[in-house]
Every structure is written in C-alpha cells, then in structure tokens.
C-alpha cells in the first residue's frame, strides 16, 4: 500500500513540475520562485491520504451519528440505513426520562469527580518525589510507575478482577491475614465503583507523572533556591512556587484525564459488566449496550451526542477556570 501511494504521489509531483520547466530539470531561478500553483499542488498531494481517511472514517461518522440521533435507526437499518424514519428530538426527550441513562450519567460523573483529582494529585506527588526527592535510580522508579500505562486495559482489568476476588483474591487474602474481612469489592454496589476508580488511578498515574516531571524540569532551580533562602518551608514551596509554575501542565493533564475518564468503558465492561444492579454502568457502556446489544442505534447516537456535548462543555470550563490567571 505504501509503495503504491508513494509512487503515485511521486509521479504526480514530477508531472506537476513539468509545465514550469518543460525542457529539463528546474533551473536555479524557477526552483527558487515556486509558482503558487505548484506549491499548492504539492501541499494538497501530501495531505490527500490523511484527508481521504479523515473524511471517510471521522467526518462522515460524526455527521452520520448526528443524523441517526434524530431517527429510529434500528437493527433492520444496519443493512438498509436509508429506510430509518425521522423522529425529530424524540430520542433526546426519551433520554432524559430514562432512569438507566440517568444512573449512567451519575456513575460517570462519580468516576470523573473522584478519579480525576486523585489521579492528578497522586501523579503530582509522585512526580515531585521522583524528580526532586531522590537522585539515584530515578529511571528505574519512573519506568515502574509508568508501566501500567502501556499495558492493555482489558488484560489489567482481568488481573484486577482476580486481585479483588472475594474468595481467592489477593486483597481479601491479605485482609484475612490481618484478621479483617474485605468486602466483596466488585459484587457490592458501594464498593464496585471505588474499585474501578482505584484501578483507573493506578493505570493512569504514569501519564500524569511524566507530564509533571517534564513540567518540573522546566522550573529553574534558581527560583526554588531563592524561595528556600527566603525561608520557605517544603509545603510553602509546593503551594507558592511549584504548583503555580506547573499550572499549564496541570491544565493539560486535567483536561486529557477528564476526557479519558468521561469515556470510561473497558473497566466496567470487563470487571463488572456494569453491575451490580447498574452501579458501575457508565454512559459509554450504556451506549454500547443500546447500540450493539439491542441495536437501538438511533437512541444510542443521541447518547453519544449528549456525552460529546458534556465533554466539550467540561473541557471549555476547565480551560477557563484553570487558565493562567496569575498575571
């Protein structure tokens, strides 16, 4: 495939040069002048593969989801999409009186509101610890804290499910060693969501840590030393110097973590299947079920758009609130 595209683009590029210098290769002067038409041609030729894929597999679906959300798109429309009937805003109206969807919205909010601050704060503390606290074997520690990020969520979710297993699991075993009884984490309506959050924090801590370490390394040592000479304690230094200077990093880390957590799907899919009694059903999982188990695709499309609007809204809000307002 690469060969084909490559030679085609190459051929076109060569063809494009020909009208400019019909006789031979471009001379010094024409090479420098770059007629506008030719420059445009090259720019667009190099953009074409991406743009074609983008149009087909991103632009089209974004529009199609919106259109579908105003139809009764169902199982039979998978083979005959054009026969779906227009139903106006019915799907959206139905969504807001749908108790399951409301539960899913609440659960997703729970996951984000507890999970994001935990991830950011722990990521920041680990970053400071590994960047400023210790100076030997830093790489070793960083690799260790980052390792969960690179692993497949499905695989680690399966592992965590076993770790939290009420009878043979590691946690319940350790608890009984200490004479305590661990709850049935994933089987309890109270504990299932905190367990998923714990796993998400464990898995995403590394990303945030790496971002903060990069941010910390951009903080000049002089600033810190000056603060210390002025008699600032460790806590003051953290609050007054480090955190304010890390504001842009914190903004970026918060935004990407929030977007990721709002879309949470694999963890409940593998660990709890949304249970017990929908206590870990998230919006993405609800949408997947409506769309691909029941084939209520029009309805699921409306869910997708509601989630998207929520994500955009929260992102804009965060950009406003966390923006650098120190100057």
């Amino acid at each position, binding site marked *: 495939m690469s060969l084909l595209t490559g030679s085609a683009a190459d051929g076109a590029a060569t063809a494009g040069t020909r009208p400019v210098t019909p006789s031979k290769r471009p001379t010094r002067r024409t090479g420098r002048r770059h007629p506008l038409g030719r420059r445009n041609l090259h720019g667009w030729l190099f953009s074409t593969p991406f743009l074609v894929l983008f149009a087909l597999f991103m632009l089209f*679906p974004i529009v199609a989801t919106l259109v579908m959300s105003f139809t009764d798109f169902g199982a039979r429309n998978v083979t005959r999409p054009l026969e779906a009937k227009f139903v106006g805003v019915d799907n959206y109206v139905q969504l807001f009186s749908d108790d399951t969807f409301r539960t899913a919205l609440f659960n997703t909010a729970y996951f984000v509101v507890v999970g994001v601050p935990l991830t950011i704060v722990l990521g920041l503390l680990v970053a400071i610890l590994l960047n*400023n606290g210790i100076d030997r074997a830093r790489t070793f520690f960083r690799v260790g804290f980052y390792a*969960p990020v690179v692993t497949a969520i499905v*695989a680690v979710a399966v592992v965590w499910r076993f770790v939290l297993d009420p009878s043979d699991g590691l946690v319940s075993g350790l608890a009984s060693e200490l004479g305590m009884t661990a709850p049935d984490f994933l089987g309890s309506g109270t504990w299932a969501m905190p367990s998923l959050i714990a796993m998400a924090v464990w898995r995403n*801590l590394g990303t945030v840590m790496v971002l903060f370490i990069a941010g910390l390394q951009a903080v000049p040592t002089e600033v810190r030393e000056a603060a210390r000479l002025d008699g600032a304690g460790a806590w003051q230094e*953290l609050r007054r110097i480090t955190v304010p200077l890390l504001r842009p990093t914190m903004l970026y880390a918060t935004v990407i973590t929030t977007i990721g957590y709002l879309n949470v799907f694999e963890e409940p899919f593998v660990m709890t299947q949304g249970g017990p009694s929908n206590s870990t059903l998230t919006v993405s999982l609800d949408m997947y079920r409506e769309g691909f188990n029941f084939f209520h695709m029009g309805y699921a499309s409306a869910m997708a758009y509601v989630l998207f609007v929520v994500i955009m809204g929260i992102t804009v809000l965060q950009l406003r609130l966390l923006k650098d307002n120190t100057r």
Partner: protein
Amino acid sequence: MSAPTAPAPAPAHRRTSRVRTPVLYAVASLGLLVMAAPFLWMALSAFKTKKDLTASPPVWIPGQWTLGNFRDLLDQLDMPRYFMNSLIVAVLVTVCNLLFCSMLGYALAKLEFTGRSKVFGLVLAALMVPGNLLILPLYVLMNKLNLIDTYAGLVLPFAAGAFGVFLMRQFMQSIPDELLEAARIDGAGEWYIFWRIVLPLVKPALATLTIFTFLGSWNNFVWPLIATNDPGKYTLPVALATFANDPNRTVGGGNGMLMAGSLLIVLPVLAVFAVLQRHFTQGIATAGLK
C-alpha cells in the same frame, strides 16, 4: 505524605538531609511495590497450580511451578491465531500511520499551500473527537462495505491518526528551511526531499510514533470488539475479554488461565517498554508541552 516535597538536591551543595533521603526512598519503593503488585500477582499466578490459586492465605510464590494454565488456555482458545491477528493489525496500522502522518506533517510544517492552517485546525479538532461519536455509523459503514471480520475493517479507521500528524509536524518544524531550499535548487522533487532528506532527519520522531501507534493498536479494544463477529478474527484483548466474561468458563481453575492469557498480552509490551522507555516519555512530553 509530606515527604515528597523535599527540596531538589542542588549539585553544588547537596542539602538533602541524612534522615530524609532514606524516608523518601522508602516511600518511593513502597509506591513502586503497590504499582507492581498486580503485575507480580499476574505473572506468578499464571504458573500456579489450582491448589495454590485457591490457597488461603494467598501464596505469592507457587509451591509447585506449572505450565498447566498455559496448556489449558491453548486447548480452549486459539491463542496463536489471536496473537497473529493482533500483530497483523498493529503492523498495518503502524505502517499506514508512519507514512500518512509524516506526509501531512511535512506538508503542514514545510510546504506553504492555500488552506494549510485550515487543514491544521482540522487535525487539532480531530484530536478531540472521542471514539464514541464514531462507532455506531462506522459499524453500519463497514457492514455495507463488507469489511466486518476483515483486517481492512480493523485497520482503516486507525490508518491515519491526528496525534501522529501533530507529532510529526512538531518535529519537522525544527528542520532548517535552508536545507530543503538547497535541495530544491539542486533540482530535487518534493517527494524526493520528503523521502530522502526529511524522513531520515526525523527518525527519533518516527520511532516514537511507531511505539505509540503499535501499542495503541495492540491494546485497542472497543473497535475490534464491534468490528468482529467471527472468533477467528478476534484480536487478543477481544478474545481475552470474551473468555473472561463467558459464564461457561470453568469456575475456579479459570483464574489461572486468565492470568496466563493476560501475561501473554502484557509481557511483550512490558519487554519492549523496558528497552525503549526513553522514547515513551519523550513522546508524551513533546505532545503535551509543545
């Protein structure tokens, strides 16, 4: 928990106190242990017998090492096939991304053309679009194109990621214009310049992109779950999740098999990561901070 806020050791006068340093190392080691515990538990449990798997209190080191879990797993699941499916999809996705993302990255960084800023705006917007917004009509489209249960169906939606374009553009911007101008004066075509001059100069970025794309594809779950019905086309995560959620799975003994399966998915990735870890952190920092 106030320990991590210790001052940075300045090279000239190390002020880290005698007491504080060991405490900080202890905290860091404890944290590392918590991070590593699920992996250790997985790796060790994969080699445990049924007796050790259900032992109470739990045993870390298998009393008797066994490959039985792997044998059972291979009996029940066609792991080599899922492994190959995952590998083929990941390789194809990576090759496509390397080519298409660097092509557009080059155009955005070094070619002036009408509409360039609009195309870049499109790339930035694409970074923000969640997969949830796409999968429903994508499934219908792929079904119409008869691409469900094909490699093409698994690869095409991921063949040119916006992140890759962004990464390549950032790196290519640092190439001096004079160099490319000189090549043009010598009569080199744009494709020649891109292929022979620009790409060799951005090898580190290509390495970063390779790692991220390959990993993303290897770990990808939602789309392969939707785009495959035929178990023969399952990728590793889909096969493992389906097996894990199968109510008919042998109770009790299943955990050993699941740990063996997880190990087979995670181990290659962790091994590659341990060797190439520098590229990971660089990639994230570049994408995040520039």
